[in-house]
């Protein structure tokens, strides 16, 4: 593995029968980077991400995540990454506190460590009494923030966020991105897919996927220059429309 790349992908491909969902993509992500993974619906973002987090076997190509091979060491990858899916995936019928304890336990944190992390989290998010409420009864914005914090519970090298701000109000989105910046500053790599092009501007680098291929990959600034666009929205439209 070269210097400080935490994700290295080379010609990674995933086929479902005749359909090629991800067509030979190549890129790398540096440590501490906020990497935006953009693409229209059905472009293959989620499939590509699922291969990187070790729940979908690639058809061909090479990929290393946190220093582990996606083909042979998916379980090692899982110890070193956090993941937050499109669907809200904490247990609705457990309280916030119970969810923290549960996921902490799964990642093998000690009781003392879980307790410490929990009080940290309560403080940071200003959870207060909410910590004893059932997760199912909380508003979506809260859920997403808690979900993100839980993905960070075991201090992973990389956090994968699959459309984390879908359906969330602008204020919460803003707060959410503040959380992302904060953890990126402390050295966590962020790999994020999104539909919101204003969010793409916040990323250090973005890749844009069209029909299973990565059509563009650079900093938002350079992409705008290259495509002679005022904002990422235009860049995206130019690319996606071909």
């Amino acid at each position, binding site marked *: 593995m070269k210097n400080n790349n935490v994700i290295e992908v080379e010609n990674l491909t995933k086929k479902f029968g005749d359909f090629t969902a991800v067509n030979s993509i190549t890129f790398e992500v540096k440590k501490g980077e906020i990497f935006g993974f953009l693409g229209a619906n059905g472009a293959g973002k989620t499939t590509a991400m699922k291969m990187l*987090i*070790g*729940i*979908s*076997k690639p058809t061909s190509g090479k990929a290393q995540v946190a220093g582990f091979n996606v083909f042979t060491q*998916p*379980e090692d990858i*899982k*110890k070193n*990454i956090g*993941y937050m*899916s*499109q*669907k*809200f*995936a*904490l*247990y*609705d019928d457990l309280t916030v506190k119970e969810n923290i304890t549960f*996921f902490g336990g*799964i*990642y*093998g944190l000690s009781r003392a460590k879980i307790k410490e992390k929990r009080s940290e989290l309560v403080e940071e998010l200003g959870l207060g009494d909410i910590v004893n409420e059932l997760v199912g009864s909380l508003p979506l914005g809260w859920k997403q923030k808690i979900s993100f914090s839980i993905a960070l519970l075991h201090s992973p090298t990389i956090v994968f966020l699959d459309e984390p701000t879908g359906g969330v109000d602008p204020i919460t989105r803003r707060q959410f991105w503040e959380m992302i910046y904060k953890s990126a500053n402390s050295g966590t790599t962020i790999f994020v897919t999104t539909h919101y092009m204003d969010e793409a501007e916040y990323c250090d680098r973005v890749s844009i996927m069209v029909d299973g291929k990565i059509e563009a990959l650079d900093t938002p600034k350079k992409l705008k220059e290259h495509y002679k666009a005022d904002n990422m929205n235009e860049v995206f439209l130019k690319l996606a429309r071909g």
Partner: protein
Amino acid sequence: MLPIIFVLPILQLVILSNAATFEIKNIKFSYVDHDKTSFSRALIEKFDASTYFNVVAEFPSKKEANAAMAKGKVDVILEIPRYFERDLLKQKNTDISVAINAIDGAAAGVENVYINQIVQDFNKKSKVALSSPTDMVNAPKDIVTIPSFWYNKTLNYKTFMVPGILVLLVTMITLFLSGMNIVREKEIGTLEQMNVTPIKKYQFIIGKLFPFWILGFVLLTVGLTIAKVIFDVPIIGSLGLIYFYTAFYLLVVLGMGLFISNFTDTQQQAMFISWFFVVIFILMSGLFTPIESMPMWAQYVTEFNPVKYFVQVTRMVMLKGAHFNDILPQLTKTIIYAIIMNGLAVWSYQKTT
């Protein structure tokens, strides 16, 4: 959910145990008496005196009786021929005709047996009455069988049914709940979240099994209590042995449930497949119909029915007081079954697809 899990099966146990009886009572009995003599009346009185038959009508002719049968007003028509008494007095054979409504074939069979018993009894008594004392000495003695019913002296069907129904309820509930469980997590999306964690497959499966395993024991305990308190079913053998066997039995059912949920994407599918198996298990368990009377191929199929073993074991232990060695064949098969089912459940649960 928890109250539902407990209240419904208890209701089922209480209701079904009272209703699922093989005894047939209150049979609607009618007759056509062409003879109208003291003998024919005596025969009909015997039917009237029986607890199984209610004499509901007398018809002047077979035609009217048949019409009543067609309307479902009577179940049985007994037709006594003319010269019934005269023929009997002359020690001649005489026939009486019986028509039975056999829409329910099983019930008709039982009714036929009851009718035969009454007629035989009547026959014997009339023979005695008609014979002269000298004949009695020379007459060949009838062979009379005196049955004694072991393990259930009074042939109380509840003693027989309650342990079986209890077994069914424990099986159904644990199978359905475990079958739906992983599928539900697939639907919600928490399963994907779990698959991204470093949790081991066996840890996940054990985590899924354990709560339902405990639940199975609680259900069994509640059911056994009801069996004892409400139905007064004898528990001759060791309760410990029943629990010991159940520990392995539940693993079979739960492993099967998890296996099903690994292969299905929605709770509907899981429910449908679970029902498929439950219905086969119930009807081929020997609970309602004896396995010995099934065709040979079906008997082989029942070898793969875990419910059959559980029904056998509970009946053996509760009613016969069977010991560990007596249930060893069932126990061994159940343990092998449990290993296979849970092996399949762990194998078919794929964190990476």
